[in-house]
Structures are given as structure tokens and as C-alpha cells.
């Protein structure tokens, strides 16, 4: 920020210097011309009864010229800025006497100074006269007009999606003001190709078609003065299903493709889609899972973590139904101050009674904008879980692929891939994430991708070491002797032996991914349009929540992050327990 700021201040200084230089040059030229003329005049044979002083006075008078500025347009209640520009003078312009006079509210008002700010008490068109006097008592006059129009306020712009349950938009012009009173309010815009006109201070219209509506509010007061303002209502088209559900598509599509390939493979081999071997396999797997589940349940902490995670999952899925506000970003409690006395100032503490302004019960209070903390916390679970799971999926895929290749092929491949892994391992990854977010831009998908591709090296190392031990086992050597290809060995022998062990690591990675997401959001590098716990904490930090005593503002998202990361860690350790029999003994 300071670089921009420095540049700007540098720019300002430069223009100012140019300005004064220009003015000084003009002054110098003027004086030079005057002296030249005086010199010529004095060199000329002067008439006996005319002293040269009179000539110089006449010249000075000619040199005083002033401009009162262009006609001004002001809204009611704002300062009209009257600024005199001196075109020619022989005196420093700050020493001149400036007098502005005009009639406001049937009385003559006089103001002195080169720059005058004045608030007109009523709307209308005013003629303003400027008189400038210099030390020789020479005067110059100019005049300008000020048009004061009523202040129109069309309210805040809004944006929502076509499939929003409520598309009826209330237009509210109660922020408009004028003296004398406003008599008509007219809203005009184009809807569906046809011009639409609404009248009244409060108007409503049902916007069903996606488009950007530029709504112009025209107010007229009893003086006949007209003020305008505009408000933008943006109705977004419902995006394609794939775009709207990109996470489902990203995960669902690969699963579908893999399933289709498996079925195709079976079909090609000529066996039925479900053979008796498959049933046997499924039975065995079911038995194994039941056994593991019993062990998992015996780990009380892990089981508790599991239940907390289920609750968080439910929170994420059912957020719109369990939260008190449909779109937590849209419904705000207003800050209300009347005559300098605060009737209501955000953040609001937790309460069980309905707000009289929005009709929402803020069980967990609000933040500085008056947004409901409870609903935001519910919605925040979505961002955390999605980032945690998808980013980890990316990093596990990358890490497993690299670890497998390095461990299985060994030699040069191993060397090169491990150097790459080491390289990524020593890179300072928090700064790297920050830089990558700065390069890519603040989109939610980039948050996911950046976390995914900065956290794979640990997976690669774990997978590699596992592959190294599995590779030396007898059955691999035998498979090689029979002539199995590398792909086949990796697919049927190595992967099934390695995957269970990286599973626990994966769950722990999720915890780190959630942590990273909160970090990025906290430092303002996340997607500003996504509700997340990190972003909530960021606003709490920026607006001094604790100094305002707003513990709920930090407490809710903070506790949510800690609980979620803790649960993932506990579940991860428990799974480790299940899959590593050696650990269970202790």
C-alpha cells in the first residue's frame, strides 16, 4: 500500500510544482510585459500634464481578471465549493480580496475568501457574484450559478441468483432528503425490453429474469428541482449444474468413469458382472471392515472425533435448513444512531429474542456488519470440509503417484523424484502459498489447488518408504518371474498393500489442509465471496472484536476450527491404531 501511496504523493507533488511554476512563469511574463510597456511608455515623449502613474494604474487594472468557475451542480445538504481562479494579476493572488455574494432564503449572504464552502438551505438555482479587489483598489467581477437539487438515495445495490426463493425486491428511497419536501419519487428501468416505471417512496418489483438492472430514481421537490440516483439490481443466471456442483462433478465423474471401466473390463473378459468370486471378496471385506470397526470403536477418543465429524458433515449439508438466515451474507442488522445516541450498534451479543429490524434471532450474536454468527458458522463448515477433502485428494493423488514411481522403479527415477520432493519439502510453504494465491487470484478453487499442491511431499515420502518394503517381498518377485507387467504388479500387489497405511496419513493431512485454509482466509487471501471460519476471524481481528468485548465473534468460528481439526486428528490417530497392530499393544 505504501508503494502506491508513495507514488501518489510523488505525483501530487509534481503536479503542484508544475502548477506553481506555471503560475510564476505567467506572473513573470505579465510583469515583464508590463515593465516593457512601462519602459516604452516612459521612453515615449509623455504629455506634460499626464504623469506616468496614471498609465501604470490603467495597466494594472487591465491586468486583473478573475473567473468564478463553471456552474456548479450540488445535491441538497452538500457543500457547494466556490473557487475563484485568477487569470491575471500583478499582486500575489493570496493577497487579493475575494467577495462572494448571493441570495439564499431571501437574505443576502456574503462570504470572503478565494475558496468558499457553503450549504444552501433550500433547493433551487442561485446566481453567485464574485468581486475581487487588489491593492490598487482595482476590481474585477465574474459570476456563476449553483444549482441545488434534492438528494436522491436509491438504497444499496443488490445481487442474487435467479433461483433465489425471494425475487421480489423492495426499493427504498427513504435516504432521500430535500428542503422543501420531495413530492414525487419515480423509479425507471428496462425490464424484458420494455421500460418500466414505478412510483412512490417505497416500491417493489419482482425480478425474475437474469440481467443487470440499472434502476434510476428521480425525485422532484415542490420547488420543481429534480434529483437522481441509481441502484443496480443484478440477477445472476443460474449456472450450469456442473459449475454449480463442481465438487460433486470433480469427485463423481472420476468415480463413474472408473466404475464404467471396471464393468467394461468384466464384460470384455466374458464373465458376468457379479461373479461368485466377487461375492466372496465382498463378504471377506465386510468381515474385515467389521473387525476394524470394533477396534476403532474401542478407541474412545477416535470415536468421539468421528461423531463430531458427522455433526460437522450434517452442518455442512443441511446448512440452509438449520441456519436462521438463508443467505448469511445478505441479511444485516442496521447500525442505528439517532441524534448521536446509539440505539443499536453492532456487533450484537447473543440473545434469544427476535431482532425488531430483521426478524432474526441471533443465538450466537452478530459481527460488525450485523451478520448472524450462528448461520455463518453453519455455512463455514462447508468451506472447511470441501477444502479439507478436495485439497487432500489432490495432494494424496500427486503424492501417491510420485511415491509409487520413485519407490517401485528406483534408480534414476527415484533419485530425480526424491530430489523434487526434497525441493518441495524445503520450500517455505506458507510464503509459497501466499505468493501463489497472489499470482492466481482469490478464487475458492485456487485455494483448494494451492493447498493441494503444497502438501503432497509428505505423502510421497510415506508411500515411497512403504513401497520399498513391499517391493522386496517374495510375492512381488514371483509375480515378476511369471512375467507380470509393472502396471499389473503396482495395481494388484503394491497398491492394496500401501493404501491402508497412507489412509491414516490422509486423515491427518485433511486437518492440515483445514488449518491452511483458515490461515489463508485469516490473512485475507481467500475467496471473499465464500463464508469461512478463517474469514470470520479475519473480520474479528480487523475490527477489534475483543476490545469491543465481542467474545462470541471469535469464540464461535475459533471453537469450530479447533473442534474440526481436533476431530480429524483424533480419527487419524485411531485409524493408525487400527491399521498398525504394533501400536495397539501399548
Amino acid at each position, binding site marked *: *500500500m*505504501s*508503494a502506491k501511496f*508513495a*507514488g*501518489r504523493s*510523488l*505525483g501530487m507533488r*509534481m503536479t503542484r510544482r508544475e502548477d506553481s511554476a506555471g503560475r510564476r512563469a505567467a506572473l513573470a511574463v505579465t510583469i515583464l510585459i508590463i515593465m516593457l510597456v512601462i519602459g516604452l511608455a516612459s521612453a515615449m515623449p509623455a504629455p506634460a500634464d499626464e504623469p506616468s502613474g496614471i498609465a501604470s494604474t490603467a495597466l494594472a487594472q487591465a491586468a486583473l481578471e478573475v473567473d468564478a468557475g463553471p456552474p456548479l451542480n450540488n445535491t441538497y445538504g452538500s457543500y457547494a465549493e466556490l473557487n475563484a481562479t485568477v487569470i491575471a494579476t500583478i499582486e500575489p493572488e493570496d493577497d487579493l480580496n475575494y467577495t462572494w455574494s448571493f441570495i439564499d432564503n431571501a437574505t443576502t449572504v456574503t462570504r470572503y475568501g478565494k475558496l468558499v464552502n457553503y450549504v444552501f438551505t433550500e433547493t433551487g438555482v442561485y446566481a453567485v457574484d464574485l468581486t475581487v479587489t487588489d491593492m490598487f483598489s482595482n476590481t474585477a467581477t465574474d459570476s456563476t450559478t449553483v444549482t441545488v437539487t434534492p438528494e436522491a438515495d436509491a438504497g444499496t445495490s443488490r445481487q442474487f441468483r435467479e433461483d433465489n426463493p425471494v425475487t421480489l425486491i423492495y426499493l427504498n428511497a427513504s435516504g432521500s432528503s430535500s428542503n422543501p419536501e420531495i413530492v414525487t419519487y419515480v423509479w425507471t428501468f428496462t425490464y424484458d425490453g420494455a421500460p418500466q416505471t414505478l412510483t412512490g417512496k417505497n416500491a417493489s418489483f419482482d425480478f425474475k429474469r437474469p440481467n443487470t438492472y440499472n434502476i434510476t430514481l428521480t425525485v422532484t421537490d415542490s420547488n420543481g428541482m429534480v434529483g437522481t440516483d441509481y441502484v443496480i439490481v443484478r440477477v445472476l443466471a443460474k449456472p450450469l449444474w456442473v459449475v454449480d456442483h463442481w465438487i460433486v462433478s470433480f469427485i463423481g465423474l472420476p468415480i463413474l468413469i472408473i466404475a464404467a471401466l471396471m464393468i467394461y473390463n468384466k464384460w470384455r473378459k466374458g464373465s458376468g458382472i457379479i461373479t461368485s468370486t466377487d461375492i466372496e471378496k465382498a463378504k471377506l471385506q465386510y468381515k474385515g471392515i467389521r473387525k476394524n470397526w470394533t477396534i476403532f470403536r474401542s478407541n474412545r477418543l477416535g470415536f468421539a472425533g468421528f461423531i463430531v465429524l458427522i455433526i460437522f458433515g450434517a452442518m455442512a449439508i443441511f446448512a440452509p435448513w438449520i441456519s436462521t438466515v438463508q443467505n448469511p451474507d445478505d441479511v444485516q442488522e442496521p447500525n442505528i444512531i439517532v441524534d448521536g445516541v446509539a440505539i443499536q450498534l453492532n456487533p450484537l451479543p447473543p440473545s434469544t429474542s427476535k431482532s425488531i429490524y430483521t426478524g432474526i434471532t441471533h443465538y450466537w450474536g452478530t459481527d460488525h456488519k450485523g451478520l448472524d454468527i450462528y448461520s455463518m458458522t453453519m455455512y463455514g463448515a462447508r468451506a472447511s470440509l470441501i477444502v479439507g477433502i478436495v485439497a487432500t485428494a489432490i495432494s494424496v493423488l500427486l503424492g501417491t503417484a510420485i511415491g509409487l514411481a520413485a519407490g517401485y522403479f528406483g534408480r534414476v527415477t527415484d533419485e530425480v523424484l526424491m*530430489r523434487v520432493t*526434497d*525441493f518441495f519439502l*524445503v*520450500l*517455505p510453504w*506458507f*510464503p*509459497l502459498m*501466499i*505468493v501463489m494465491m*497472489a*499470482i492466481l487470484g482469490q478464487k475458492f478453487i485456487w485455494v483448494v489447488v494451492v493447498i493441494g499442491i503444497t502438501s503432497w511431499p509428505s505423502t510421497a515420502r510415506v508411500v515411497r518408504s512403504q513401497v520399498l518394503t513391499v517391493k522386496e517381498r517374495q510375492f512381488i518377485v514371483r509375480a515378476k518371474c511369471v512375467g507380470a507387467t509393472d502396471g499389473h504388479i503396482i495395481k494388484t500387489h503394491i497398491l492394496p498393500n500401501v493404501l491402508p497405511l497412507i489412509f491414516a496419513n490422509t486423515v491427518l493431512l485433511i*486437518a492440515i489442509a483445514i*488449518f491452511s485454509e*483458515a*490461515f489463508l482466509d*485469516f*490473512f485475507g487471501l481467500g475467496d471473499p465471496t465464500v463464508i469461512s471460519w478463517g474469514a470470520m*476471524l479475519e473480520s*474479528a*481481528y480487523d475490527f*477489534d*472484536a*475483543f*476490545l469491543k468485548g465481542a467474545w462470541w465473534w*471469535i469464540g464461535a468460528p*475459533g471453537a469450530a*476450527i*479447533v*473442534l474440526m*481439526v*481436533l476431530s480429524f*486428528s*483424533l480419527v487419524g490417530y485411531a485409524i493408525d491404531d487400527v491399521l498398525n497392530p*504394533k*501400536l495397539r*499393544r*501399548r
Partner: protein
Amino acid sequence: MDMRTLLTRKLVYVVITLWAILTFNFFLFRIMPGDPTRVLVPRGGSQELRDAIMHRFYLDRPLWDQYVHYIYQVFTLDFGISSGEWKLQEITPNLVEPLINTLLLVGIGTALAIFLGVMLGRYAAWRRGTPADTVGMAFALTFYSMPTFLFALVMLMVFAGQLQWFPLKGPYGELPFVANPPDYTDMSIPEKLLSRGYHLVLPVLAFTVEVMAEFALIMRNSLTDVLTEDYIVTARAKGLSNKTILKDHAMRNAMLPVVTVAAISVGWVLGGDIMVEIVFSYKGLGYIAWDAVNLRDFCVLQALFLIMAIAVLIANLVADIIYMYLDPRVKI
């Protein structure tokens, strides 16, 4: 494979990785969006000025020439000229103060965290299954799961904001029980130390508690593993005292994973702790990095990246060597 071959090989790896980091560092900041001259050239600057600045920063040369120049610069410890915080100043001398600040904060914090974490982990593992273990591990797990910035934020708001026991920000400047402290440059040396210590308490506490949790968890895990080994049973059967078993038989073996993590942590010391430093507005390297990102000050970022990466690289090398010394099996 003997020690020397192994060491040589490690050194070769380090050099290769170093080169990779240098190259990555060079190209990463060349693909960053935005014209660097726009930051450097004042608004309304002429084309000549722009050309001169491009020339000064070697930006008018072909890419390979820039690359060679960059490598040369790095080896002469010349990190170029800042376009942000220290406008148009040499970066290297400006990095000294943040470096000292960071070393103080993260250095003290890391040392404390390793020591306390190992103690806590050892205590919990030795009394595993008892309430002491449960409480200790619950403490460690909670702080391990808590984002550092959140804990730092709570500390800042409670102890500096609400209770006002400690200063709100900065690495120095205020003194305890002194309403209007003199300028830092006018302070006597004990006063300077006191001022620094006063400002360090909260950040170090936040950092230590967060990092300590990790060490406690690793130590406990590793030690519980070791305590189930047969040689511990043997030692017990021999009638050795608990103290001897823990000190000479269990801890020696259980320290290995701790050493690895400790080495990486020591490597991170130079990186500073971005979260703690930002929350406490503590001008260390992490804070500078954050500033540089916001100001798009690429030269500073490049320098910081390099310093951090090299520190981790060296710490890893040292960890490998210590590992070889502690665990002779590694050599084979």
C-alpha cells in the same frame, strides 16, 4: 557405505537442491503478473526513465543474461533494490534488523518449545494411561489443533488489549511501569534489553505453546513405542532403576524422530513465524515477507524465500549428520 561417501553424497544433493531453489526462485517471480516497472517508475514518468530503470534492474536483457546476473548477485549477497517498504534502498542491509528480531522471537520460542515439549511428552509417556497422561495429551492435542494465529489473537486481546499487562505491538519501544518511555535509541543497554524482553513475552508464549504441543505428541508417541520393546523388559528384569531405564535405554532411542522434527523447526527459525509476527505486528522476517506480498515487492520476497529455503536445507543436512551419529543403522 562409509561416513565420508554418505556425507559427500548428501552435500551433492544439497548443492543440487540449492541450484533448483535458485532457479525456481528466479522463474517464480518472473511469471508473477504485473509490470515491475509500474511500481518503480513514478506516475507520469517518461519512457527514458522507464528504460533507465529497466536497465538498472537488468530487465532489458535476455532471460539467460538475467539469470546469470541473478546467480552472481546471490553469491555476492546483493539482493537488489526494494520497491516497497524500503523504497529504492538496498535490501541486504535492511534485512539485518528483522533478522535479529526474528532470531530472538523464534529462536527463544523454538528452544523453549523443544525443551518443554520433550519434557511433557516424556512425562505423559512414562505415566501413560493415568489421568496425568490424559490431561497432558488433551492439552497438547488442543493446542496442536488450534491455529497459531487464533491462539496469538486471544493472547493479544486478553493480555495486551483487555488487561494491558503487555504492549500491543512491535519488537521494542515500551517499558514496564514506565508511562512515557524514552526513544529506543536513547535507552541504556539494560533498558533496551528490558524493553525487548517486555515485548517478547506474549509472542514467545504464543509461539512456544503452539510448537510445544507438536513436540509433546511426537515425543509421547515415540516413547510409548520404545517402552513396549523387548530391551526395556530386559532392562527391567535386570533390576535397573526406573530413572536409568528412562534415561539410558528408552530416551536415547525415542529421541530419533524428535531430532528430525527439531532440525526442521530450527531451519524454520529463519523463516520466522508469519502468523505470530503479523498478529503482534512484530517486525521479523515473516512480517517483512507478508508486507512484501502486499506491496508486490518481488526482490524482497525473492531474498526471503532464498534465506528461508537455505536455512531449512542446512538444518536438514545437520539433522542427517546428527541422525547418523545417533543411529548407526542409518549408515548401512
